[in-house]
């Protein structure tokens, strides 16, 4: 590692170019993190464009002085600034330029001052500064620098940048705790991530490392994968479990008789200072695993016989606490909300879709395999809510769910009597959970009352009705239990069924859940029919993947 303590204009330029390159490599990744303030997925691109603006302004010039360089760069970055993140970044750079004003070369102290100035400018740029964003990451970066430089007045740029980036990574990892929208989406702040990528690039440029996507991979992963949970071991924690200490020791001829040395010497010592000992010897190499409170003593002791090839020491309290935290998370995994929705459904397509439109817990079951009261109780237990609304979605399931509702005492359970998939869909589609529970239920019941259910299936026998005779194997259209249409052609059966629907002139929408056996060509045909024969109705198709019924229509 070099020990850079001063930078001139050209050197600083190289660093920023490194920052831009690294950001560009990760721009897509940063884009995908973007949920705040508007989830339009452009943070990484915007920040790259902003820096690119700076680079365009300085590209063909030579800069002896950092001050001159920073001025030109900052002007270009401002002109290139795009998006909120870009504007904030450009202002940070403007602050840097102000901080470097008059500096031909810069020291770490100049860097710190300019960084701090950048943070001030960045906060100024935003109408309502929000914590948990890039602003937090840079501010905490500045705070870290202040302490770090006080502690280590003789440090170099390399060491400082490295530590700064570790610190900003921590800060970034905590952004979801400050900004609920990030936590909800399960991401860290995109602007903050972009900012860190820039400084990682600066660090790499400083150390003379080549910036390529491959080399960066571990870094990139660090962002998306949980790193060590720093909250697991704090200033107040006690060391309960010691350190898991592992190393490979190369015995040294200068220190010991390599051929006669036995690992037992080490094991005897380790038994006094630790436990969980594993020792393996292969000629002049010894591999050790031990749990100890004093890894330093162990290392000093063993070093009298040789030198270390590898070393790994981990605080087991942290690991332990991480496991505890994970446990805690699991119990927290209960669905907590004021109003939760349970529905009984079968078929992967339907289940997935109903979850998408607001069902929290699904009870497995339907037409042929009705769920039990206990199944419902198990579902309720996954929920921590004041109110639970149950949509049975099948007339045969209303009873079991009602019984479960009576038994269950941890929440008020309301059965909204959707007796078909179509009614269940109608209730969910008009659901508005920001209302009071009575109004939510009223809206859902209203939607159910306005919905007719039509289903297409195949007749399993010959039947004669008053106005309709059905042959085995024909397609029939059902509304509840009444057979309203029959035809050898599925599309015709559907058309006649819909046309025979009660109150059709009042309806606005047809939603068709199509079953597992429906082909793409048939869907097209069905769509053509709906368009031509029912031009006043809006329609849409949803892959239900259900068996038995090729189509379930919600006619609303």
């Amino acid at each position, binding site marked *: 590692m070099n020990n850079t303590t001063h930078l001139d204009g050209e050197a600083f330029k190289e660093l920023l170019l490194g920052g831009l390159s690294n950001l560009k490599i990760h721009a897509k990744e940063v884009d995908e993190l973007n949920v705040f303030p508007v989830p339009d997925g452009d943070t990484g691109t915007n920040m790259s464009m902003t820096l690119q603006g700076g680079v365009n302004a300085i590209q063909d010039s030579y800069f002896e002085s950092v001050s001159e360089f920073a001025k030109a760069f900052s002007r270009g970055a401002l002109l290139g600034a795009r998006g909120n993140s870009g*504007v904030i970044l450009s202002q940070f750079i403007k602050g840097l330029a102000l901080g470097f004003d008059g500096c031909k070369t810069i020291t770490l102290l100049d860097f710190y001052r300019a960084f701090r100035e950048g943070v001030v400018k960045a906060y100024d740029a935003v109408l309502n500064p929000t914590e948990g964003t890039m602003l937090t990451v840079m501010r905490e970066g500045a705070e870290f620098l202040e302490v770090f430089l006080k502690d280590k007045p003789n440090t170099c740029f390399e060491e400082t940048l490295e530590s700064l980036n570790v610190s900003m990574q921590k800060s970034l990892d905590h952004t979801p705790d400050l900004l609920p929208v990030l936590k909800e989406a399960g991401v860290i702040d995109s602007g903050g991530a972009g900012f860190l990528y820039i400084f990682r690039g600066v660090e790499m440029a400083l150390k003379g490392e080549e910036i390529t996507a491959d080399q960066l991979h571990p870094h990139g992963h660090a962002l998306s994968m949980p790193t060590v949970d720093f909250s697991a071991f704090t200033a107040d924690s006690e060391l309960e479990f010691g350190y898991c200490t592992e190393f490979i020791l190369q015995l040294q001829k200068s220190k010991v008789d390599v051929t006669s040395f036995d690992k037992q010497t080490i094991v005897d010592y380790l038994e006094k200072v630790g436990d969980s000992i594993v020792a393996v010897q292969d000629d002049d190499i010894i591999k050790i695993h031990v749990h100890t409170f004093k890894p330093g003593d162990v290392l000093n002791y063993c070093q009298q016989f040789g030198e270390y090839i590898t070393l790994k020491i981990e605080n087991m309290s942290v690991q332990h606490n991480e496991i505890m935290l994970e446990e805690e998370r699991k119990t927290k995994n209960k669905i907590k909300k004021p109003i939760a929705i349970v529905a009984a459904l079968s078929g992967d397509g339907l289940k997935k879709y109903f979850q998408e439109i607001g069902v929290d817990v699904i009870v497995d079951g339907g037409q042929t395999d009705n769920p039990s009261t206990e199944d419902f109780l198990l579902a309720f237990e996954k929920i921590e809510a004041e109110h639970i609304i149950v949509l049975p979605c099948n007339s045969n399931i209303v009873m079991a769910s009602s019984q479960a509702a009576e038994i269950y005492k941890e929440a008020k359970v309301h059965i909204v009597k959707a007796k078909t998939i179509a009614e269940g869909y109608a209730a969910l*589609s008009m659901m508005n959970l920001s209302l009071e529970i009575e109004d939510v239920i009223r809206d859902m019941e209203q939607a159910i009352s306005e919905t007719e259910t039509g289903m297409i299936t195949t007749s399993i026998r010959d039947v004669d009705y008053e106005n309709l005779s059905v042959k085995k194997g024909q397609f029939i259209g059902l509304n509840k239990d009444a057979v309203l249409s029959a035809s050898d052609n599925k599309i015709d059966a559907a058309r006649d069924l819909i046309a025979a629907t009660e109150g059709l002139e009042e309806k606005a929408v047809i939603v068709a859940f199509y079953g597992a056996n429906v082909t793409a060509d048939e869907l097209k045909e069905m769509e053509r029919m709906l368009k031509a024969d029912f031009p006043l109705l809006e329609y849409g198709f949803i892959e239900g993947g259900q068996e038995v019924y090729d189509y379930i229509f919600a006619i609303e």
Partner: protein
Amino acid sequence: MRSFAILGDSTCDLNKDLRTQLDVDYVQMNFVLDGKEYPASLDWEGMSAKTFYDQMREGKRITTTQVPAETFVNKFTEYLEKGMDVLYISCSSALSGSINTAKVVAKELQEKYPDGKIVCVDALNSSFGQGIEIMWASRMRSDGSTIEEVAEFLEKNRNCVNQVGFVEKLDYLKRAGRVTASSAFFGNLIGIKPLLISDAKGQNFAVKKVKGMQNAMTEAVAMAKERIIEPEDQILYISHADSKENAQKLGEMVKEATGCKDVFIGSIGPIVGASVGPGTLILYYVGQEETTIGEA
């Protein structure tokens, strides 16, 4: 007294005729289609509304970018050089960060033009909602109000510009993310038209679900009738995304229900259009001050 220019941006949906009449100008945002960037022209220069919305219907994703800093620098400088001040009435800050950039640029230019003034007002509205505020500003300027008086008036009254709109398909809105509601509220629902207002913070907020286009129009008109103030003196504004027929139908309905003086119908420009998608209708009127603040 220095005269001042009034600027909107690509979301204000005022066409060339209106802008000429009002003597106002606008700064352009951009939209990106198939990796190519186009200036978001309110007069559909470069790409027709039909082509634009047909591309969306075909499933092409169109993204938008806020007003670039350079555009602000150029436009502001143009008027400052003429010895004029500038009043920029921006798209709602809940939908676009343009006003942030504008303020930063304004600060920059202040050094070079110490006598010039750039005032930025957050319309807390978009489309004709922002447009109505620009019309107010233009009228006040003709009546001799100062730039500060206009800005103050807008900041006091912007929440009285009421919006009620609905989209044909929820997909675009969901993808653009410029709406406040839970994801379940916006699940892949068919035929559901959430009524969208511009809340007190300028966010698009879904207040109510309605089934079917016809019901949506009826509900929107009912809402306007309840909230409108002095309809007989008002021209109402309807913006539409390639859906003129429905816009005219809505216009007739709202005229009959409220007894308003007239209804003006115009096109939703590319920026708002990219967020709401083809088939969208939005009605604007002056009514009770909006106090609702939407939460997801």
